[in-house]
């Protein structure tokens, strides 16, 4: 055991080339590398030599839980995946992705905080971990199966939680996911292809072993308070409702996208019975979360294809089952194909006319990508950015949709048209994009999404005034400038630094990004989130301390999280030559006019490179990095 509560105490190190399983004590990493992403960063820095690529057998594919994972801490069911990424561009940078469902808690209760998987099996294998026992099994009979059927093959008795890849991962599609259940996936990063390159089809876990709690009474009380306080799903302060028509027609219901979720979410719905459009007579069931809500098409949004609900649901399930990244398809690839069709540079994909209103085209597209069939779809299996270069088409559209590093836009105010964010808030997004190696928003929704969500723009009835948002945010950022809609570049580096650390914290503890950090509330007089005598942004630290006994202050937990970002940065610099010029390569993207106009300004804004560079320098300084972005310690 580690001497701290919350940890299982061991990490499994599996070498698929040598067919060996070894244990590492988690206590080797504690308390500094306190969970999930932090532990993975330390292991990666020590293990990954320069010259290693995403598909090198030496690339460690890591799945890590954190101390809070699966405990009575609310929203704590998540697992963080780390390693060199297949999707990363222009380099297969080290990065992370995370998924929900119920797999991570089962891994911990099976006796392990995380897995480090290296090597390449000579034939398809799966890993089975049952109450502390780990075995490698032949998976030749599973190779080629979809993610749903693969999971079902392990679920002959209750309690098994399965993580799997589909044909897309097997065929090394750089936009392949690793998934569990029907809609929980490590989506961005192309880690499905990394898993496929190791000939690893699935990881099944089952466990009910006990985990110690440092102060059970206090931990239970803190968790109860935090669970009761949480509201809204991500800044939208009112409770979402089911659609009576879809309840009646399709069995719509709320479904947690991660264990421990304690809110009714805007984004997560399960459907028990949706008629198939592509195979009439069949009924489909599954979850539809988050960006998958775009599959049906949304008029006048930039995603205005006309599949309709049933076909959109079915196409989304095909992507899940084949193991393809929803974000890439919906925010990047299909809008890119639409623009190519519109300007006449690409009219058909491997014999099928590009018709995004036709579910048959989507099926042809997705099935062909996952199987790498045909010239166009085989190129798209490399991800849209690489496909554009390979096919020699669509460069202008690519520059409009993909901010950096091979990932489509996300809360950036320019390429992503579904999330409403205007100047000056996307300056923080731009800073986050600049220093990351992937789309940074996955665990950093807490700035732009929270501010916009709580504002009258997105919540005209239940939202807060701008003045109140500024007052509350000043408690977090130390200045009203960080969230003032009339502000410019000032204090944006402060917000970017703060949320960067919180991103690490969420990926390390682990807790859900759509709820934490708790900042705004409509349950307190001053609209600052509180529970008992705890302030909202300290909830994670209170739960962490009561569970583990590590006893850090807010500043210590923040510093430990910042240390992770610096170590990840040092890894990128050492192995890939990452430098300030790379970071500044995001500038042209943000120099385009924004999508949504700030009502205080009245005309579309774009990035001022000079002011942005000053904020980037300030962000480096806040991180303890030099002016070239190199960590000083």
């Amino acid at each position: 055991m580690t001497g701290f509560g919350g940890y299982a105490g061991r990490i499994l190190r599996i070498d698929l080339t040598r067919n060996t399983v070894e244990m590492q004590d988690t206590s080797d990493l504690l308390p500094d590398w306190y969970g999930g992403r932090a532990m993975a960063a330390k292991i990666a820095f020590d293990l990954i030599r320069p010259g290693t690529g995403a598909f090198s057998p030496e690339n460690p594919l890591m799945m890590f839980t954190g101390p809070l994972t699966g405990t009575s801490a609310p929203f704590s069911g998540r697992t963080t995946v780390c390693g060199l990424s297949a999707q990363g561009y222009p380099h297969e940078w080290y990065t992370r992705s995370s998924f929900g469902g119920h797999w991570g808690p089962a891994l911990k209760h099976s006796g392990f905080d995380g897995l480090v998987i290296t090597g390449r099996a000579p034939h398809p294998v799966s890993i089975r971990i049952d109450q502390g026992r780990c075995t490698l099994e032949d998976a030749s009979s599973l190779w080629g199966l979809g993610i749903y059927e693969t999971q079902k093959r392990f679920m002959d008795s209750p309690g098994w939680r399965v993580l799997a890849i589909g044909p897309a991962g097997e065929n090394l599609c750089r936009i392949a996911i690793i998934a569990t259940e029907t809609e929980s996936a490590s989506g961005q990063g192309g880690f499905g292809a990394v898993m496929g390159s190791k000939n690893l089809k699935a990881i099944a876990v089952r466990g009910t072993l006990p985990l110690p709690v440092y102060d059970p009474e206090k931990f239970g009380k803190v968790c109860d308070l935090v669970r009761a306080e949480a509201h809204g799903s991500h800044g939208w302060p009112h409770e979402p409702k089911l659609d009576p028509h879809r309840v009646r027609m399709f069995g719509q219901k709320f479904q947690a996208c991660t264990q421990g979720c304690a809110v009714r979410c805007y984004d997560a719905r399960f459907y028990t019975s949706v008629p198939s459009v592509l195979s009439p007579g069949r009924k489909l069931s599954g979850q539809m979360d988050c960006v998958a809500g775009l599959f049906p098409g949304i008029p006048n949004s930039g995603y205005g294809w006309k599949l309709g609900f049933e076909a959109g649901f079915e196409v989304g399930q095909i992507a899940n089952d084949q193991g393809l990244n929803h974000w890439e398809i919906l925010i990047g690839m299909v809008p890119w194909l639409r623009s190519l069709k519109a300007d006449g540079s690409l009219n058909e994909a491997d014999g099928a006319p590009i018709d995004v209103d036709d579910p048959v085209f989507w099926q042809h597209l997705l099935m062909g990508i996952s199987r790498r069939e045909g010239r166009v779809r085989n190129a798209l299996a490399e991800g849209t950015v690489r496909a554009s270069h390979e096919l020699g088409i669509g460069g202008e559209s690519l520059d409009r949709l993909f901010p950096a590093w091979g990932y489509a836009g996300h809360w950036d105010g320019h390429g992503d048209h579904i999330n409403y964010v205007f100047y000056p808030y996307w300056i923080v997004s731009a800073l986050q994009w600049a220093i990351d190696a992937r789309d940074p928003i996955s665990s950093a929704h807490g700035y732009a999404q929270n501010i916009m969500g709580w504002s009258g723009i997105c919540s005209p009835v239940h939202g807060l005034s701008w003045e109140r948002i500024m007052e509350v945010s000043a408690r977090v950022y130390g200045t009203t400038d960080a969230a003032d809609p009339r502000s410019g570049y000032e204090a944006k580096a402060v917000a970017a630094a703060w949320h960067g650390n919180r991103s690490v914290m969420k990926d390390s503890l682990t807790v859900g990004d759509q709820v934490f950090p708790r900042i705004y509330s409509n349950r307190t007089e001053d609209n600052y989130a509180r529970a008992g005598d705890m302030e909202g942004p300290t909830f994670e630290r209170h739960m962490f301390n009561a569970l583990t006994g590590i006893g850090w202050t807010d500043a210590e937990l923040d510093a430990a999280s910042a240390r992770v970002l610096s170590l990840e940065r040092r890894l990128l610099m050492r192995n890939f030559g990452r430098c300030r010029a790379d970071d500044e390569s995001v500038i042209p993207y943000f120099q385009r006019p924004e999508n949504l106009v700030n009502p205080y300004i009245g005309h579309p804004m774009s990035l001022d490179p000079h002011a942005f560079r000053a904020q980037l320098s300030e962000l480096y300084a806040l991180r303890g990095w030099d002016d070239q972005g190199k960590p000083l310690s």
Partner: protein
Amino acid sequence: MANLRLCVNPVPCTGCLNCVVVCAQNRAGDHFPGASAISVLLDPFGGEHRHLYCRQCEKPSCAAACASGAISRNLVTGAMVIDETLCVRCGECVSACPFRAVFWRDDLDLPVKCDLCSGAPRCVAACRFGVIRFLSPDHPGFAFRGMPESEQDAQLGRGEG
């Protein structure tokens, strides 16, 4: 209080398992799902999760199966509770429960079942979606609307129990 029981409507269940982890922590101190006296069989592909929980039956099979008389009703809460000092660990109660709501706790080598947390069930407080409620069987909402009669019996603990 002696008349209040757990009432489960699985339809709004989101599969969050908060009821399970909170019960386990309350019973074991440690975080230990094996200590929980409620279980949810998740149905990730069909969305119809199934709850294994004690009805505190009017005619409890667990007590009838217990040769050592270790299971009796707490007259304050109305819960059927196990007296661990009398239990001979035969496991007959686990086999006898028609609702699969008596669990075996490996670490203690003892059966565990819901004791209604001495009258304030933690799972009820932890459930944010109204799946698990604590009601009198006479309450009009106890057997929720649309529930088949056979399941109403089960909900009331009157079925095979």
